[in-house]
């Protein structure tokens, strides 16, 4: 159940982007919104969903709230593995298709 919720939370590309940005370090809503092509309320909504899914936590910092991926580090491990598999699978794809091109075929 919790896993399904977490998966649904990351299915949205913008929400995923918000999550990946938090993987780089804690941020407030305003800072996150600045680098994204969506409104600040939209970012808040994404954070709410991520929080409900247990993927991020928040804490007050003066007048604002700072969001971060979980303090135990699982989110960071996940973010690292995600990039790692991108690299490995890109190499796999290249290998499959490189040999494919050895047969005569216009580039």
């Amino acid at each position, binding site marked *: 159940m919790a896993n399904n919720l*977490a998966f649904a939370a990351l299915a949205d590309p913008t929400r995923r982007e918000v999550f990946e940005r938090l993987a780089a370090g804690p941020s407030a809503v305003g800072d996150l919104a600045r680098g994204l092509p969506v409104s600040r309320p939209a970012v808040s909504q994404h954070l709410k969903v991520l929080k409900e899914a247990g993927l991020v936590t928040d804490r007050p910092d003066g007048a604002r709230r700072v969001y971060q991926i979980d303090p135990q580090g*699982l989110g960071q491990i996940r973010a690292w593995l995600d990039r790692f598999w991108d*690299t490995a699978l890109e190499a*796999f*794809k290249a290998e499959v298709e490189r040999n494919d091109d050895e047969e005569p075929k216009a580039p």
Partner: protein
Amino acid sequence: MNATIQPAAIRKTFTLRATPERAFQVFTAGFGGWWPRTHYVGDSPLTGAVIEPRAGGRWYGEHEDGVERLWGDVLTWDPPGRLVLAWRLNAEFAYDPALLTEVDVRFTAVGDGETRVDFEHRGLERFGDSEAAVRTLGMMDGGWGLILDSFTSAANA
């Protein structure tokens, strides 16, 4: 005190210009040919990487010092449609036979000689929490960034 996290499985879907038979073959028998040489366990450089072709087979790296370093084993061997590997490297990249995370790869024929690959790495919550892990990953991040850059350059060349 700390919030518990249930990280979502890592999922990747992409299409290859090859048959499922060829994709499965390259992924497994050709594993050492595409696995990035920069991704390995321990201090001795990687010279090869192997997925043994059967359920229960080992999944490991071959190193310059002659030692084979185990990463996990084959849970499901069902060519050409599906391969499931146990990834038993913990968050500090040490082999832990008690740890089970699953790498599930499905190859499905689509269109004209193409294959859709559905990749999933799940069970990530079993990594548990580890400050050392976070430090390790932090140190390695720069390395992976460089690798990714070199792939991008090669792809765009």
